[in-house]
């Protein structure tokens, strides 16, 4: 098991290296630079800034310098937020994004699995059709439509929840719903499908014949088996949460990491974009590793050596 973990960790290094290299050269390919603005800088001052941030060096030299800095855990200064470093921005933003992402994931998993199971148990009934219709709606409504609609209804008209910003738990309700709904709906559909299949399988029939109560049958035998496709979906789901947070954090004014993705790119904030890309890259690799471990736990046939 430990050997497997080490193998995966070593395998991640080339992946991250390629990711970093691609990000570095792609952002440099984009026209315009961090100091381009409507009011152009006097050439002397621009030269001075370029020197300060080493932008006057040849690209390969900058790349080498960047790799060396990253190896020491230094993501460099932000070009846009001139009083701050990328390390500071990530350290401030990530906990917020993590909390939001985890809550959305748990919300989606809990309700998705529950609704999917209910629908499977009452397959082809009115309840099943009703739930699946709602789930289809949930999948189809993009979060950038859902979020402003929720703000209008729950914050502006009803005044039940704050419209944005970050303070107490109330501030998380709508962002979590907006970020998690589509995923919940998708998980509900996945669970329903795999649950129907599992409920028809031989080992469940045997368990039923032995007179096992429905509760035990479901939680001990059917659910773990039905969870395998849901778990495989968690990998892409994390990626979905990360891209979704780009939109949600902007709409709700949440000081997370997601918005830096887009803003960093728009401002040609080279160090910020690369820092966020690398950070999220690591995150996805770690998450995929956890998902693989979950597989082994859920499905006795899966073994890692």
């Amino acid at each position, binding site marked *: 098991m430990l050997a497997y973990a080490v193998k995966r960790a070593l395998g991640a290094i080339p992946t991250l290296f390629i990711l970093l290299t691609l990000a570095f050269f792609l952002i440099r390919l*984009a*026209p*315009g*630079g961090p100091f*381009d*603005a*409507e*009011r*152009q*800088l*006097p050439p*002397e*001052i621009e030269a*001075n*800034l370029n020197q*300060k941030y080493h932008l006057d060096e040849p690209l390969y030299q900058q790349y080498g310098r960047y790799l060396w800095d990253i190896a020491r855990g230094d993501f460099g*200064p932000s070009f*846009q*937020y*001139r*009083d701050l470093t990328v390390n500071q*921005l990530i350290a*401030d*933003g990530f906990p917020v994004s993590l909390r939001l992402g985890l809550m959305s994931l748990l919300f989606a998993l809990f309700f998705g699995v*529950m609704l999917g199971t*209910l629908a499977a*148990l*009452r397959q082809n009934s009115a*309840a099943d059709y*009703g*739930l699946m219709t*709602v789930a289809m*709606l949930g999948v189809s409504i993009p979060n950038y439509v859902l979020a*402003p*609609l929720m*703000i*209008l*209804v*729950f*914050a*502006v*008209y*009803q*005044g039940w929840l*704050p*419209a*944005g*910003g970050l*303070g107490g738990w109330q501030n998380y309700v709508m962002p979590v719903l907006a970020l998690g709904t589509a995923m919940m709906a998708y998980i509900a559909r996945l669970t329903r499908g795999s649950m129907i299949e599992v409920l028809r399988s031989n080992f469940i029939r045997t368990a039923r014949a032995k007179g096992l109560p*429905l*509760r035990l049958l479901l939680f001990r035998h059917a659910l773990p088996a039905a969870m395998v496709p849901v778990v495989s979906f968690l990998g892409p789901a994390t990626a979905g949460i990360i891209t979704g947070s780009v939109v949600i954090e*902007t*709409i*709700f*004014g*949440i*000081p997370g990491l997601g*918005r830096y993705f887009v803003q960093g790119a*728009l401002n*040609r904030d080279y160090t910020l974009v690369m820092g966020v890309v690398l950070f999220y890259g690591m995150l996805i690799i770690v998450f995929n590793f956890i998902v693989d471990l979950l597989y082994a736990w859920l499905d006795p046939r899966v073994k890692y050596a």
Partner: protein
Amino acid sequence: MIDFCSRKLLIVVLCLPLLAACGNGKQDEAPAQSRNAPLINKDGSTVLRRGNGAEPETLDPHRAQSVNSSNILRDIYEGLVSEAPDGELVPGAAARWEISEDLRTYTFYLREEAHWSNGEPVTAADFVYGLRRCVDPATGSVYAEILTPIENAKVIIAGEAAPETLGVKALSDHVLEIRLKAPTPYFLGLLAHSSAYPAHQASVEKHGDQFTQPGNHVSNGAYQITDWVVASHITLERNPHYWDNDNSGVDVVKYLPIENAESEFKRYLAGELDMTSTLPIPQIEWAQKNLPQDYQKYPFLGVYYYGLNLTRAPFKDNPELRRALSLALDREIITEKVTRGDQIPAYSWVPPGVSDYQPAEASFAGWSREKRIEEARRLYREAGYSDENPLEVELRYNTSEGHKKIATAIASMWKTTLGAKVVMVNEEWKVFLQNVNTKKVTQVYRSGWIGDYNDANTFLELMHSKFGLNGTGYSNPQYDAYLDAASHESDINRRRELMHQAEQVLLEDMPVIPIYHYVGTRLVKPYIKGFVGNIMGHFYSKHLSIRATAGAGDAQTAGMQ
């Protein structure tokens, strides 16, 4: 058990969209009254919550460039000269000043009662340090150029002289002398700009780039930074050592960076903001009708224009075509039907309302629409175009719904009036900027300019052939000569006359097509006292206070935030 659960859940789930639909039906109703209450802390201090566009890029006064940064800097710093609520210049850190007869030496007498937020007195040396720091190339100031009227500033910025050679001198602790290279009538106005703010040398040198962080920051304005959470909020509290605390308004200011104007608008409606930074154009009509007490509109020193690249075809050496395109525009339709925000159709380059100047108008300003169209067609033919040989031109704009709408309207006006074939090209901001600056591919591009100070020069210098920002490549020696003469002219009337002549030359040459002059629109809660619209769009928090008429029960408590 499952039966019961599933039924109950089903009902809840199915009801959710219905609930949303219910809310939709109430779209025209104003938000509930209870959310229209000011925020008052438990200790009785009043809080002003201001929407502030994007996150400020820095709170270093000498490196700041955005409106968002400047808004906050005006609250935490104070220049030699400050501004009254209506934008008039008033004494700031300097109680009074004297101007020499040749208009080139200014002597400022600083207030002895002015103090930094750490209690130290504000001295002339602090201003000397601040001004030198701004022009020092090592600082990397974007706005250093604004200080070029000061002796030697230009060569220092270019790195050809030491910052110590700048024409500023502390004659004593509280007397400061500034020498100019030529009489500059708008110089006092420049001193209210953040580039001319003082800096607290000891804390800047001790903390380096981090001197703006709460705890490190020492400032001399009415407020000081106490909390800064990037992308969430910046909180300012009263500077206990500020000299004019008795006449200052709110106790705490909370700046919220909300880039999305629609989000800001909704948070205002939900009672989470006391003042917005802008108002989304589609909401202006609704706000005028439903929130007449909150809706604030004021003329704003800015011009929205289309630049024409004069360095390549078809606009090179072709003033007829440039005039034809300008004449073919129906600016009234654009402001009334497209932008719909009470903007002023522009027939001059300098916006109306600028201090001590009457903008020149294009010759066709008073003509009827028919006459303009007739003349536009005549000039279009004269420039060599016809129905068989129509003008084919690219119109570039940066990504924004607003710019796109205007571009679509203008493209269709040029097509219907002249028969021109216009290709609209949408570009991402930085790509757009690079294309405009290099002048290799652009033909027509959208642009806008907001005045840095209240003087016609801030607009006119933009078109000077030597000015760094001139995407049109316009260069007319006569225009430059008028402006150069104006910049050395000590007689105010003569200077005004020279600038007027320059503007007339510009409007004849038409390297830029002015479309409309900006107006500022924003929402301010009726319980905020002291809000006065001003042409610079500068609103100092110390001028605003919260009306105490709201009963204690109505006010929100800090705990709810």
